[in-house]
C-alpha cells in the first residue's frame, strides 16, 4: 500500500459525529490498519524483478533432445550453453530411457494423472525421472490449491505422517535444551533440530539435545545445525543423526554465492551417508530472489530446478516449501499456493518432504492457520521442517509458523480435522516428569564428565520455565567453556552413554545407544525414514499406497484417541461436578418449598416467574456464574419496584425458555410471565402470543448480569400495566459465545430436559432467601 493513501487524521479515535476536519475515510480502514495482518507487506507481481509465483515470460518452454543417450538440449537451451545446474540435471536426473515417453505426454494429462487416484503413485514417480524442470513446473501450475493438496496427499512418499521441531533457546542454555528436548519427544516429534546463538556453543547444544532427546522413548532423530564441517564432526562423534542444511539453488550465480556447486553438495551428501547420517537438502522459493540472482524466472520454475538437482544428487529428501524464502514468496499473488506446489514437486520426484511451515510467513494468525491446513489434512513426511517447540523468542532459527505459544492450537486443529500432524497432547504431570528427567540426566552427564556442576536452583528455574527469560541458568559464555571442553577433549556419544548409565540413567543410556546404532545398518538412510515404536519406517516399508477413499493413511482408533486427548474437555459428569461444588453454598442462600399445584391467578398485578425443572435442584449457577438465589432476588425486587406481585412456579412439562415463559404467562393474573432456565436464559412472555413471539428474549446467558435480571422484573411489571418499557439490552462485544459456552450449555440443557415429565402440572414454589443471597 502506498503511504500517501494513509489517513491524514488520527485513526480510530474520532468520536462519532465529532469529525471537525471532515476526514473522508471509512473508519473501518482504521480498524484494519490495527490488525496484525497490516504488519505484513505485499509485493506487486513483477516477473522481470523475480516477483512471480508460477510463471514468468522468461521461463523456458519445456523441451528435451536426446542424441545417443546424451541430453543435447534441455528446456530450450543447447548443451553448449548449459550452466552447471543444467549440466548436473542433464547428466544425473534425466533418464534417457523414460524421457521420450514422459516428455511427449501433454502437461494437462500429467496434471490429471496426479489427481487421479486410479493412477498409482509409482507410475508417476517413474515418469518424473524423464521430465525436465520446465515440464514439471508447467504440470503442477495447472492444479488449483485443492488439487495440489490432494495430489500431495496421494504422492507423498511415506504413508505415516510426522513432524519436526526446533529446540533452541536464546542463551544456548544446555539445561533448558535438555528439558525442552525431552518435552518435544513427549509431544511426539520425529525429529528435533537445534542451532545456537554463538557458533562455538554447537557441541554443548549437541550433547544437551542428544541427552534430552533420549528421555521417554528412543528414536527421535536429532540435528545440530552448524557450520558444514563442524556439523559433520558432531555427527561423527555420534551426537546427531541427521542433517538438512545442505542448501541448493536454482541459478548458477546464487549457487556460487552460496559458496557451493551441485558437485560440492552431492559430494557432501555422499560424505554424510558414509558417516551413517541421514541427510536431506534445503531449497525453496524465494532464496534466489533474496540472493539477487533470479534470472527473471518464476519462483516455481527455479524450485523445479533445485528439486531435479536434489534427485540427481541422490539425496533421499528435501526440506522445501519456501523455508527462509517463505515470507518473501508469500508477498506475491499465489505465493502460498506456489509453496504447496513446490512441496508437490518434491514428492512427485520421490523425495522425502519436510514441507516448510517453518519460518513464519505472516503476522496474521489466520494466514498461518490457513497455510498449514492443506498439508495437515493431506499428511506429510514432516509437516513442519521446524515447528517451534520453544517460545518464539527462544527460536534461534527464526520464529516458526507455529511456536511453543501456539502448540495447543495445532493440537486442536489435528483433533478438529481428525488429521495426524505427528503430535499428541501431553498432560501437565507428564511434562514436568520428562523435563525433570532431562535436567537430571544432563546434569549427571556434565558432572560425570567433569564439565560443570549445575546447582539445584538452576535446575529448578528451568524445570518450570516456559522460556529462557524466566531461567536462572547458564549464560552463553558459561556454555562456550563447556562446549570448548567437549570438543577439545574429543568426548563422544559413547562417553555420554557410559556417564548416563553409571549415574543410573539406564533407560536413557540404552535409548541414546539405539539411535546411534541406527547407523550400523543404515536402514534410516532410505527415503523418508523415521523411527516409530522402536522400528524404522520409511517409503520402502511404509509406502504411501493411497488409491482412493479407504486407502492410504487412516487414523487408527488408538491414534485418534491420543490426538483427541486435549486438556480440559467437558462432559456431563464434569458439568454436574462443577454444579455440585456450588450446591452447598447455594443451600445457605435459598430454600425452595413445594406448595402443590399452581392454579391460574386473578390479581392483575401478578407476574409469574416460571422456573425450569433443574432450577435450584441440579443446577445452581447461570453460565455467567451468578447464583440462582441472587438472580431470583433481583428479579423479584424488580417486579416489586414497579408495583408487580411476583409468584414463583416450577414447570416440569418443558425446559424450553419460550414455553416456560408462555406457561408462566398463562397462570399469571396479569397475563405476563417470565420463563427462566437454570443456565440463565430468560424470556418475558404474554398470554395469547405465539410461543416464539415473545416480549423480550435474553438468549446470551453467559453475559447477562444481575442488573439485567432486575430490569427484566421491572419490565414485566410495566408490561402488566399495559405500558411499553425500554427493552433491556444485554450488550455483546462480539465474543464467540458458542465457542466458549455451547458445550457446557448443551450439557446443562440435557440435564434439564432429562428431568421433564410429560403432562406434569405446574407447582407453586415458596422461596426463602437467606442471609447469603447476594
Amino acid at each position: 500500500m502506498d503511504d500517501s493513501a494513509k489517513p491524514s487524521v488520527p485513526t480510530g479515535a474520532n468520536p462519532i459525529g465529532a469529525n471537525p476536519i471532515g476526514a473522508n475515510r471509512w473508519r473501518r480502514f482504521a480498524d484494519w490498519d490495527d490488525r496484525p495482518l497490516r504488519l505484513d507487506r505485499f509485493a506487486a507481481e513483477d516477473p522481470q524483478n523475480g516477483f512471480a509465483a508460477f510463471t514468468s515470460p522468461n521461463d523456458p518452454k519445456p523441451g528435451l533432445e536426446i542424441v545417443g543417450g546424451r541430453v543435447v538440449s534441455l528446456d530450450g537451451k543447447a548443451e553448449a550453453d548449459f550452466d552447471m545446474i543444467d549440466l548436473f540435471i542433464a547428466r544425473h536426473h534425466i533418464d534417457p530411457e523414460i524421457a521420450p515417453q514422459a516428455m511427449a505426454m501433454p502437461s494437462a494429462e500429467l496434471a490429471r494423472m496426479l489427481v487421479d487416484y486410479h493412477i498409482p503413485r509409482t507410475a508417476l514417480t517413474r515418469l518424473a525421472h524423464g521430465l525436465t524442470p520446465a515440464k514439471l513446473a508447467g504440470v503442477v501450475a495447472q492444479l488449483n490449491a485443492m488439487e495440489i493438496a490432494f495430489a500431495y496427499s496421494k504422492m507423498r512418499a511415506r504413508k505415516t505422517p510426522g513432524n519436526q521441531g526446533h529446540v533452541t533457546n536464546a542463551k544456548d542454555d544446555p539445561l533448558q535444551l535438555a528439558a525442552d528436548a525431552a518435552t518435544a519427544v513427549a509431544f511426539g516429534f520425529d525429529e528435533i533440530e537445534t542451532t545456537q546463538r554463538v557458533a562455538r556453543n554447537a557441541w554443548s547444544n549437541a550433547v544437551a539435545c542428544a541427552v534430552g532427546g533420549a528421555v521417554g522413548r528412543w528414536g527421535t532423530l536429532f540435528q545440530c545445525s552448524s557450520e558444514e564441517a563442524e556439523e559433520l564432526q558432531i555427527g561423527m562423534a555420534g551426537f546427531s543423526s541427521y542433517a538438512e542444511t545442505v542448501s541448493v539453488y536454482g541459478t548458477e550465480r546464487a549457487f556460487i554465492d552460496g559458496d557451493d556447486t551441485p558437485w560440492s553438495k552431492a559430494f557432501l551428501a555422499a560424505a554424510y551417508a558414509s558417516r551413517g547420517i541421514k541427510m536431506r537438502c534445503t531449497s525453496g522459493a524465494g532464496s534466489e530472489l533474496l540472493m539477487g540472482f533470479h534470472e527473471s524466472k518464476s519462483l516455481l520454475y527455479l524450485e523445479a530446478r533445485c528439486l531435479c538437482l536434489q534427485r540427481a544428487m541422490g539425496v533421499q529428501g528435501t526440506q522445501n516449501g519456501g523455508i527462509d524464502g517463505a515470507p518473501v514468496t508469500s508477498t506475491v499473488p499465489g505465493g502460498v499456493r506456489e509453496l504447496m506446489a513446490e512441496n508437490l514437486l518434491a514428492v512427485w520426484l520421490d523425495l522425502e518432504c519436510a514441507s516448510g511451515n517453518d519460518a513464519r510467513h505472516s503476522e496474521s494468525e489466520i494466514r498461518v492457520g490457513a497455510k498449514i491446513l492443506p498439508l495437515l489434512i493431506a499428511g506429510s513426511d514432516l509437516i513442519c521442517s521446524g515447528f517451534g517447540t520453544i517460545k518464539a523468542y527462544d527460536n534461534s532459527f527464526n520464529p516458526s509458523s507455529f511456536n511453543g505459544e501456539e502448540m495447543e492450537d495445532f493440537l486442536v486443529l489435528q483433533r478438529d480435522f481428525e488429521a495426524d500432524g505427528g503430535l499428541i497432547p501431553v498432560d501437565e504431570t507428564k511434562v514436568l516428569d520428562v523435563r525433570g528427567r532431562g535436567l537430571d540426566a544432563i546434569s549427571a552427564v556434565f558432572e560425570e564428565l567433569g564439565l560443570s556442576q549445575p546447582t539445584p536452583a538452576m535446575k529448578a528455574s528451568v524445570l518450570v520455565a516456559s522460556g529462557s527469560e524466566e531461567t536462572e541458568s547458564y549464560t552463553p559464555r558459561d556454555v562456550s567453556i563447556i562446549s570448548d571442553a567437549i570438543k577439545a577433549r574429543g568426548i563422544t556419544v559413547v562417553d555420554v552413554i557410559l556417564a548416563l548409565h553409571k549415574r543410573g540413567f539406564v533407560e536413557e543410556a540404552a535409548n541414546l545407544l539405539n539411535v546411534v546404532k541406527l547407523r550400523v545398518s543404515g536402514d534410516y538412510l532410505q527415503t523418508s525414514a523415521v523411527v516409530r515404536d522402536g522400528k524404522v519406517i520409511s517409503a520402502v516399508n511404509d509406502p504411501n499406497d493411497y488409491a482412493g477413499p479407504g486407502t492410504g493413511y487412516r487414523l487408527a482408533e488408538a491414534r485418534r484417541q491420543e490426538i483427541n486427548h486435549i486438556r480440559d474437555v467437558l462432559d456431563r459428569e464434569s458439568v454436574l461436578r462443577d454444579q455440585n461444588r456450588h450446591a452447598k453454598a447455594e443451600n445457605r442462600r435459598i430454600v425452595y418449598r413445594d406448595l402443590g399445584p399452581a392454579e391460574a391467578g386473578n390479581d392483575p398485578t401478578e407476574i409469574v416467574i416460571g422456573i425450569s425443572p433443574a432450577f435450584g435442584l441440579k443446577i445452581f449457577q447461570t453460565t455467567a456464574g451468578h447464583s440462582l438465589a441472587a438472580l431470583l432476588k433481583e428479579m423479584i425486587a424488580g417486579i416489586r419496584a414497579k408495583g408487580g406481585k411476583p409468584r414463583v412456579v416450577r414447570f416440569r412439562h418443558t425446559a424450553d425458555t419460550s414455553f416456560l415463559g408462555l406457561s408462566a404467562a398463562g397462570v399469571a393474573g396479569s397475563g405476563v410471565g417470565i420463563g427462566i432456565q437454570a443456565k440463565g436464559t430468560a424470556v418475558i412472555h404474554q398470554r395469547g402470543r405465539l410461543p416464539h413471539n415473545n416480549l423480550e428474549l435474553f438468549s446470551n446467558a453467559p453475559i447477562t448480569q444481575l442488573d439485567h435480571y432486575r430490569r427484566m422484573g421491572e419490565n414485566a411489571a410495566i408490561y402488566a400495566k399495559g405500558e411499553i418499557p425500554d427493552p433491556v439490552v444485554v450488550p455483546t462485544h462480539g465474543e464467540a459465545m458458542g465457542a466458549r459456552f455451547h458445550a457446557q450449555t448443551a450439557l446443562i440443557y440435557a440435564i434439564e430436559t432429562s428431568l421433564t415429565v410429560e403432562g406434569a402440572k405446574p407447582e407453586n414454589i415458596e422461596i426463602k432467601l437467606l442471609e447469603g443471597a447476594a
Partner: protein
Amino acid sequence: MKKHDHLKVADYPLSENRPDLIRTRTGKPLDAITVEALQSGTASMDDLRITKDSLLMQAEIAEAAGRPRLGSNFERAAEMVDVPQDVLLQAYELLRPGRAKAKSELLEAAATFRNTYKAERVAAFLEEAAEVYERRGLFQFRY
C-alpha cells in the same frame, strides 16, 4: 565377494529382516552392541559406524525400490567409508567455487581417491566436476 542374493524391498529393514547380513566394522552382530559391551570395552565407537557393506546393501534396496540415484549416492558413500575425515573435508573444500585454482588440482584429488582409497566412483565424480568447473570458469579467485 558378495555373500547374498540381490536384495529386495522385502529384505528391508535389514536390521529387522536380515540381521544375518549386518556386521559392525569389527565384525560383531547388532545385538552384541550393548551398553554393557561399551562398558567392558568389547565394543567401541568403531562398532557404531556404518560399513561399506551396509551402504552397498542399502544401494541395492534403493534400486529395488525404484530410486537409482539414491542408490548411486550410497555407492559413492560406500567408497568414502574408509576415507579419513580430513581427506573428505579437503576434497569438499576443493569442490567449492574458486578453491581449486586449476583443473589439475581436482584431477589430483580424483587420482588420490582412485589410487589410495580405491574410490572409482568418487574419482569419476571429481573428474566430472573438474571438466564442468573449467567449462563454467569456476577456477576463478573468489576471496
